[in-house]
């Protein structure tokens, strides 16, 4: 067992990973339960490994900031946070003096990162396509992303990277590129790259131009299944990588707009509700000794969970009327609603707040107002302030949900924290802006008990930063996922090296 543990240390990251092997040996959800270590208690006790992050300026997100604090980690979970924490003997220390320590960021809209391109089974399991060596994971960790909600799209080029998830057309979404295919781009001009039929290319440099026509209502569209999975960016390890499948009921834009779509949507919800009634009756009958078949599930499990309010509906809506339509439906049918895109949410904040609707948006996204409605349509930089003041929880996404190596800086997922800077620019407080990268998306994913803040009992997904988390110059120096060091800037060296001190 000893040899095994030693070998499971990823050689790249050296000795700080000791707690990891232990973390794998028992279910992660039972940190202190006496039942957990029953298998080989003696060995466990002898080799209990503790990781201590010492001396950092800890931004917990949900609680007060702790200056010069210590975080203890065991079995991939945070076991202690505070200033006067006694560090157990033999604990592996990570020096965080002079560093800002924050929870890992949650990217709530991500194209296929961390999933292998080779998985192709129609009936395949997501877990089998996990690729913990995806270079994009390192890119993500480099800016602090430790958890991603990844959209799984069937078919389509670019491994499903094309698509519409926040209602803005593909044309606006910067396409991602694989590091492996970028090779030739360094030597050829990109003018001829195909961005699809609707994208105009700059005549000067050949890059796609972001159009900013006025917003229009989403046309009705047939509903197509969109799947999503939540994965940890646990580079190099499968263990603990897959967190959940289907964190949302993801509906394509326009798929519950219009009379016919809404009729069938109401039908589905009604069937789900009836199923619960039938099931209760069935259980009662069984309890009283009757033999009968259980009722058949009339809709997908996801819809059932939606009706039980376990997971929210996520749908793109941008204009005031689209957003209103969805709010009304969610109130009528009684499910949780998360609006993506949400360009004009700032116009009707009270209506969102009253319905408890949450928002996923990109502060820098711009869309021109409609003619004659310049003051009350289109996107607005101050939306972050409006949302904060109205108390609407929001999560942030980047302009593109891919990792782009095409050379345009700061417009894709690798600039996610910079979107929070733009939220501050728009008037939100730094606290709210940071929450929009951490606890707010964690709540939308139903994972607020595991991720999104630095608290005892939560997963040790922690960043050591060389500055304020919202400063545009800040880099992640060390990132931990599930208590394991998965990224060190000085060793991974995927992002620019720090300037040499002269």
């Amino acid at each position, binding site marked *: 067992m000893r040899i095994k543990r030693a070998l499971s240390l990823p050689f790249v990251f050296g000795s700080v990973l000791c707690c990891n092997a232990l973390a794998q040996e028992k279910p992660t959800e039972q940190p202190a339960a006496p039942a957990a270590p029953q298998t080989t208690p003696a060995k466990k006790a002898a080799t209990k490994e503790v990781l201590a992050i010492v001396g950092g300026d800890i931004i917990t997100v949900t609680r007060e900031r702790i200056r010069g604090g210590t975080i203890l980690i065991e079995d991939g979970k945070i076991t202690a946070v505070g200033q006067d924490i006694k560090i157990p003997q033999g604990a592996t220390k990570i020096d965080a003096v002079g560093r800002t320590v924050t929870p890992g960021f949650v990217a709530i809209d991500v194209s296929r990162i961390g999933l292998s391109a080779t998985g192709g089974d129609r009936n395949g399991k997501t877990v089998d396509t996990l690729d913990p060596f995806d*270079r994009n994971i390192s*890119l993500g960790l480099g800016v602090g992303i430790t958890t991603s909600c990844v959209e799984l799209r069937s078919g389509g080029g670019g491994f499903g990277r094309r698509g519409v998830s926040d209602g803005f057309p593909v044309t606006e979404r910067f396409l991602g590129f694989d*590091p492996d295919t*970028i*090779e030739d781009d*360094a*030597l050829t*001009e990109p*003018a001829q790259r195909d961005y699809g039929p609707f994208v105009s290319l*700059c*005549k*000067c*440099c*050949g*890059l*796609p*131009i*972001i159009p*900013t026509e006025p917003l229009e209502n989403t046309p009705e569209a047939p509903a197509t299944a969109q799947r999503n999975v939540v994965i940890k960016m646990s580079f190099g390890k499968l263990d603990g990588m897959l967190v959940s499948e289907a964190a949302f009921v993801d509906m394509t834009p326009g798929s519950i707009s219009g009379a016919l779509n809404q009729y069938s949507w109401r039908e589905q919800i009604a069937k789900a509700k009836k199923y619960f009634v039938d099931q209760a009756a069935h259980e009662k009958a069984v309890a009283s000794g009757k033999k009968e078949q259980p009722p058949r599930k009339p809709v997908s499990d996801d819809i059932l969970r939606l009706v039980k309010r376990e997971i929210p509906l996520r749908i793109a809506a941008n204009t005031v009327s689209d957003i209103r339509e969805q709010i009304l439906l969610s109130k009528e049918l009684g499910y949780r609603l998360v609006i993506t895109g949400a360009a004009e949410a700032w116009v009707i904040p009270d209506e969102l707040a009253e319905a408890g609707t949450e928002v996923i948006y990109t502060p*820098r996204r*711009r869309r*021109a107002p409609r003619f004659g409605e*310049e*003051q009350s349509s289109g996107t*607005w*930089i*101050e939306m972050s302030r409006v949302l904060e003041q109205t108390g609407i929880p929001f999560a942030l996404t980047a302009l593109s949900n891919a990792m782009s*190596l*095409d*050379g*345009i*800086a*700061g*417009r894709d997922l*690798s*600039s996610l924290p*910079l979107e929070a*800077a*733009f939220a*501050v*620019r728009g008037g939100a407080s730094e606290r709210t802006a940071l929450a929009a990268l951490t606890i707010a998306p964690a709540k939308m994913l139903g994972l607020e008990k595991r991720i999104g803040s630095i608290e005892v009992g939560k997963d040790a997904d922690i960043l050591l930063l060389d500055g304020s988390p*919202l*400063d*545009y*110059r800040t880099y992640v120096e060390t990132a931990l996922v599930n208590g394991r060091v998965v990224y060190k800037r000085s060793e991974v*060296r*995927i*992002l*620019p*090296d720090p*300037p040499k001190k002269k």
Partner: protein
Amino acid sequence: MVRRKNNPGLRISANSAALFAILLLASFVDTHIAIAQDAKPKLAIHVGKVLTCVGEPIIGGTILVSEGKIEAVGKTKEMIVPDGYQQIHHPDAFAMPGLVEAHSHVGGSGDLNEMVYQTNPELRNWDQIIPHNEQLKNAIAGGITTICFIPGSGTNMGGWGTLMKTGPGKLSDIIIKAPGVLKIAQAGNPERQDGEVGSGRGGMNYVIRQQLIEGQLYVRQWDDFEAGRTKVKPPLNLRLEYFKPLFHREIPVVVHTQIYQVVQSTLRILHDEMNLKIVLDHSEFDAYKLTEEILKRNIPVMVGPRGFHYDRERGQVRGLVAEYANRDTKWLGVNTDSPVVPQEELSFQAAMAVRYGWNEEAAVRGVTIEPARALMVDHRVGSLEKGKDADIVITTGSIIDPRNYVKQVFIDGKSVYDITIDRRRF
């Protein structure tokens, strides 16, 4: 830079007005319009910090503005504000010169490319200008007051571009210089179909050289005539007329050039052979490897819209501006190639360059005085100095930090954007 003078800058403003008029004359614009200055009040702008972009920042500074020009810049406590000046207080804010965009296509309508010939020196783009259009309004909200509005790179010589202000007004009010630059594209987009001349780099550079030599000859004929060396007045050729300021080195060529190989031919053909003032635009991918040659010739580099390249040797993202800066390039700026990157995000281009290894002081210069010098309009814009246009941006802090935003913008001494009155645009 600190001035402590009692006399208001009347003489100065008269001088600069004359200069302005002369410039406008050169730009084929009616002169009497430019002298109408009545709407430009005298201002005393007091701010927490002035980034002049030449020399050290001034903590607690005041800028005096008169007749659309900067009259004085100095420490507030050392400055005596004469009567008749409207006082504007931004005690917590920064003042900086209006940002200068080195490469933009949003000054007017989108007909940027007339691809009739492979070289089009007969085309000029100031007829396409739409002053203070939506994109330019956003640009002002991003602090950009001057843009180099140029034709596209659909052909090897796209035509003549304009240096213009982003604010409202008649064409004559907003044009700084027209023609301001010549647009040349040496590779990539202007490539033609296989088999035609210009489907490869050899052909493209042939047509460029051919056209420039034709222009050079024309300019020489006129120079000889005007100097009295020849009696025969050459016939006016509208197609070649604007080569005069170009070969007199009064305006530069902005060159669409990127990749080591192409930049090499830019240096060799446009600089060494044709003896032109040039600005290297884009200059992406591995072009930074030519830094030594660029420095030798003292040529400005305006990087963008790409900000980084992925170095496969190292498996690392590397900042392009940083690659130049680390090789001691000082004459360095960024551009948006707007609309590729929205015009208002010029400062964000600089922010990303800093994130990827540039330094912030250089970045502030790289969106103001460095592009102004490169475009040869630094006598008018690019810094807060006495005698220059009063294009002043009031920000909540360093504009490079995306958390800070623009509170007020003055162009030619007039407030054109004020978030206490206008809805914030960016």
